[in-house]
């Protein structure tokens, strides 16, 4: 059995966020981290590996610096890593990205016992779309928002979060699960893992390697091919600071709540 975990390196939006003059994110100026939901997915896979000795493969689509992240995931205990990196793939939206990642998963090979884990959503795009779209491309049953995973013989049971509760869902393998942060607390790398990580296999998959997969449709990959594109981007108006609401308590509260509602804060 093997588990392929899709991970993304993202800018740390909880820290200082740098915005360029043209209104786009200055990714280079921000710390790069592994997306939190994805780390939970990796940890879930490693827990299953601890119990069953299965193989855990991490897969990421990104520019060269993502290799550093993959090495750290190998240090955490994953067995192999793949980095999808090609000029042709740059600027892809979720539709384009998911077909590329699906093609990469085909290249790695998905057997009857295997599973694909993804994080629910990445903190830069916040779309939560790539996981389900990979599942559709690979014709896999899916469960999203998994806060619990139990692997049984031939099937898996997941605890899927709803806003006010959860669903317990069972499906057979191969399948795809998207994981929320709450699923697992990622383990620290051990020194012994750090010492081994550079000798574990890390393969770069480029356009030449993947282009012949039937899933790759040149018409819908990369910046030009993506079905959705950015029409305009802009910084939201800066947040209010030191705004005092005057009047009687009733008036002040009224004004405050109106402001908060207008700004979608509540």
């Amino acid at each position, binding site marked *: 059995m093997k588990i392929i975990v899709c991970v993304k390196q993202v*800018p740390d939006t909880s820290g200082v*966020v740098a*915005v360029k003059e043209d209104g786009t994110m200055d990714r280079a100026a921000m710390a790069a981290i592994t997306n939190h939901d994805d780390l939970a997915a990796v940890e879930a896979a490693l827990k299953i590996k601890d119990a069953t000795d299965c193989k855990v493969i991490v897969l990421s689509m990104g520019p060269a610096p993502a290799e550093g992240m993959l090495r750290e995931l190998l240090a955490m205990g994953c067995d192999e890593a793949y980095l999808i990196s090609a000029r042709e793939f740059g600027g892809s939206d*979720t539709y384009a990205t998911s077909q590329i990642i699906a093609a990469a998963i085909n290249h790695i090979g998905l057997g009857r016992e295997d599973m694909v884990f993804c994080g629910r959503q990445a903190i830069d795009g916040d779309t939560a*779309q790539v996981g389900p779209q990979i599942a559709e491309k690979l014709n896999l049953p899916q469960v999203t928002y998994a806060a619990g995973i139990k692997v049984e013989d031939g099937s898996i049971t997941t605890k899927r979060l709803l806003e006010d509760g959860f669903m317990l*869902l069972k499906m057979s393998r191969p399948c795809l699960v998207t994981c929320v942060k709450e699923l697992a607390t990622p383990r620290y790398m051990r020194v012994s893992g750090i010492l081994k990580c550079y000798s574990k296999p890390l393969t770069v998959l480029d356009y030449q390697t993947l282009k012949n997969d039937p899933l790759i449709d040149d018409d819908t990959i990369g910046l030009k091919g993506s079905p959705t594109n950015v029409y305009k981007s802009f910084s939201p108006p800066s947040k209010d600071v030191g705004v005092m*609401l005057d009047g009687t308590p009733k008036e002040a*509260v009224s004004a405050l709540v109106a402001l*908060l509602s207008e700004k979608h804060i509540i």
Partner: protein
Amino acid sequence: MSYNSKDIDAFKGVWVFCEQRNGVIMSISYQLLSEGRKLADDLGVELCGVLLGSGLSHEHAKALGGYGANKVYLCDHPLLKDYTTDGYTKVICDLVEARQPEIFLIGATNIGRDLGPRCAARLHTGLTADCTHLDMDVAKYKEFLKATSTIDVDNTVFEENTNLKMTRPAFGGHLMATIICPRFRPQMSTVRPGVMQTQPFDAVGAAGVAIDPVNVQLAQEDIHVEIMEIKKVARQMVDLIGADVVVSVGRGISKNPEEGIALAQTLADALGGVLGASRAVVDAGFITADHQVGQTGKTVHPRIYIALGISGAIQHRAGMQESECIIAVNTNADAPIFEASSYGIVGDVFDVVPLLTKAVCAIQKDK
């Protein structure tokens, strides 16, 4: 008819996926119909609601008509009683392929975010998630930009087009992006609950809604996930550190600490938040130390931090100043907390908080 998502002109109509759970239509559906109505009017086309479930009635359809739908596609089948990715995706995609709407809106609930992307992938089209604003008309879009951005709108070139302009936050809300899907149809968009305004109920629209009972083609073999259990869970005790909202009490509640804490807790509950406290309150024994926020307590960065009767000494601020939106209530207009907050009310916590809780609940009911 072979479905071709690139044949733009063949697609007409605005559709809204109307989510229901346990036979109750969720309010997001009404919000999206209200919004969809505006788009349909801009385009001069029909607005249709798509309702899936089991044991649905014409009453359900009428409710959707009352919020703007011209027509409701009623997809009633035992296998659609509870949401499954496979069941709902198949029925919806079959319907979209048959009728070809140009716009399809889905509520960004936990379920919508499972369904939307799967459908978009199957329909070979683009999906934009968590949209906060939708525009058809370029002139209206320009007005929107003038009000909400720092772009010099009058000196910027805009392509004239009739693509749906879908605006959404990215990078944790630090950046706004307007997305279009020019080459494929339907243009799909998910919208979070509470973002769009619901229009008033229109009894005439309700009575006049056209109901199209869909012949659902669905078999058990089409569904690959088994539902073992569905459970509602009471809200759990959330950790201060991961909390979305923190409502903290300080020395200002000393005159009646029990009531002060109760008021704060009620406000916290209304906002889905957690109760925090300043060191003074903990030291005085009014509340346990695990609620303490500050230098010697916990450091929090919630989306909303409400400081009630807290002066804002540096040790407390060190624990919460990174919060996105800080709201302070204090009787002392010179309290340092006001320098660190986004919004402030000079007043007595005991007067202000009950009013605030009431107002918050009222707003939430509308959503």
